[in-house]
């Protein structure tokens, strides 16, 4: 079995008396889509923030590529190849779609510490950025301001930005949120095609999408891991049906 790219071991985080995550462990292996599901308030978003470095865990450790990344903040983790899409689109509104991609790729193209050179708008960099947009069918919208594109296009751009960074790990926090059926279908197809490129940790409420995409599932309830396993295992697990799927056992 291949070594996991990302592994979370015994991670806990409390906010006052509320234990948002207690002793959570999970792994993300190369080539897999690992879905994280659970009812509202189960601690999924907290766990994502702990992995991304936005929050510091009270206990436990997170390793990326075998390296302990606990001391690192979100910027350094992003630099190491951790990419994420946000639950609520987080883009630069007064930039064009293409400029958002250029920002995402800036770290790989010389970084921001260049003060007198004019930023390239017509160059190989533009090509690279356009290529990244093609994946999500946004190339025709490249020069439109983000504040003027639709919600669905913003969700697609979130994914394009994450992919354009050539990440080692992709954290997706409810990528389907607010998408219509067409958009959901398109995004499901796109995420499905990512598997070979980058392992994905997916938090999603749309169960059809989850069951279509996930290689493995982890069910989180009240901040604890209820079970981890294949889609079939989890579907059949009685306690999951009780706790989450709302089926009487």
């Amino acid at each position: 079995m291949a070594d996991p790219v990302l592994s979370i071991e015994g991670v806990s985080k409390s906010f006052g008396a509320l234990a948002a995550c207690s002793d959570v462990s999970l792994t993300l292996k190369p080539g897999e889509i690992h879905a994280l599901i659970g009812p509202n308030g189960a601690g999924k978003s907290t766990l994502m923030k702990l992995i991304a470095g936005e929050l510091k865990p009270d206990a436990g450790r997170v390793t990326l590529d075998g390296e302990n990344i606990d001391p690192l903040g979100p910027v350094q983790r992003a630099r190491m190849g951790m990419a994420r899409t946000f639950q609520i689109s987080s883009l630069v509104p007064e930039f064009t779609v293409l400029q958002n991609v250029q920002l995402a790729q800036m770290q790989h193209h010389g970084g921001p510490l260049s003060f007198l050179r004019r930023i390239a708008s017509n160059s190989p960099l533009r090509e690279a950025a356009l290529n990244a947009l093609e994946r999500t069918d946004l190339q025709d919208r490249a020069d439109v301001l983000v504040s003027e594109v639709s919600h669905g296009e913003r969700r697609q751009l979130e994914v394009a930005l994450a992919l354009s960074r050539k990440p080692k790990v992709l954290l997706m926090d409810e990528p389907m949120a607010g998408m219509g059926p067409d958009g959901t279908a398109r995004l499901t197809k796109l995420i499905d095609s990512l598997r070979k490129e980058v392992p994905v940790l997916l938090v999603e409420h749309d169960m059809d999408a989850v069951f279509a995409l996930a290689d493995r599932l982890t069910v989180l309830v009240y901040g604890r891991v209820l079970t981890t396993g294949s889609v079939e295992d989890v579907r059949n697990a009685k306690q999951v049906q009780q706790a989450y799927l709302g089926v009487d056992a």
Partner: protein
Amino acid sequence: MTAALSREATINCVIVALLAATVLFAVVADEPFTITLATRVAIFAIAGIGLNLALGHGGLVSLGHAAFFGIGGYAMGILASHAQTFEPLVLFGLTIEGTKSMPVIWLVAMVASALAALLIGALSLRTSGIYFIMITLAFAQMVYYFAISWPAYGGEDGLSIYVRNSFPGLNTLDPIQFFGLCAVILAVVIWLADRLVRSPFGFALEAARQNPNRVMASGLSPYQIRLIVFVISGAITGLAGALYADLNRFVSPNMFSWQLSGEFIIFIILGGTARLFGPLAGAALFVTLEHFLGGLTEFWQFWLGLMLLAIILFARGGLIGLLAGERRHG
């Protein structure tokens, strides 16, 4: 988009032409005081452009930029006073000769204010919004009170420099020559600010102003980007401070006053936030109002206040925004 841009460029040319015409008129009519006013405009514009990089482009509302202006002023005052008395300055066991050479003074002023900006920025940038405004104000007030209570360089009374410092090949005591010098520096600063804003750094800075989370997700540190622009901003404002001290041949703790920090912000609001020539337009308007309205009524600041209110309510882009229309990125 290009139409709006070239319109802004036209307005910028008009502003420069107006300033040049004023100075030309003053030379012909032999009114040195008008030249002094124009020099004030140029120097205030430099300070404003420095602040505009942090405030307009970085979204960092600093109410403490007088600290850097004053440090630049005192760099000039201290160096020139030692040259004046022929007493070397002893600092940490090092003996430093005073100097009357402007380029050396400018360099020292910029390095000193950049270091101060690094220190103040490193601490202040951990906060944001109203806290950032208050903490930058607090730092500037600290320096202000320090200057008042430091007797070695005049304390509350300030420090007079009898002869303006020298620049190779120029007679800096001639108002028009000193104005020319300041105008050239202003042009260089405008050019630098323009390059900076259009550079990859300016791009990242703009992104950090709009959405720091996205910048972080891109593996870039908003804190680092902001600290760098704060230091550049402080250094430019410090340079303006050294020039201002030379214009007046006098430095005093008033150069650190929070009113002055506020005036820098007013230049930007009047002229247009994040507009290249905004601070120049704002400073020109401010100095003109101060001179003419101030000659008519003691309460000129009341009218200035009304004007600011009108701009904030009806013309967020300031004078240049009003004339040139919406600004577009890219």
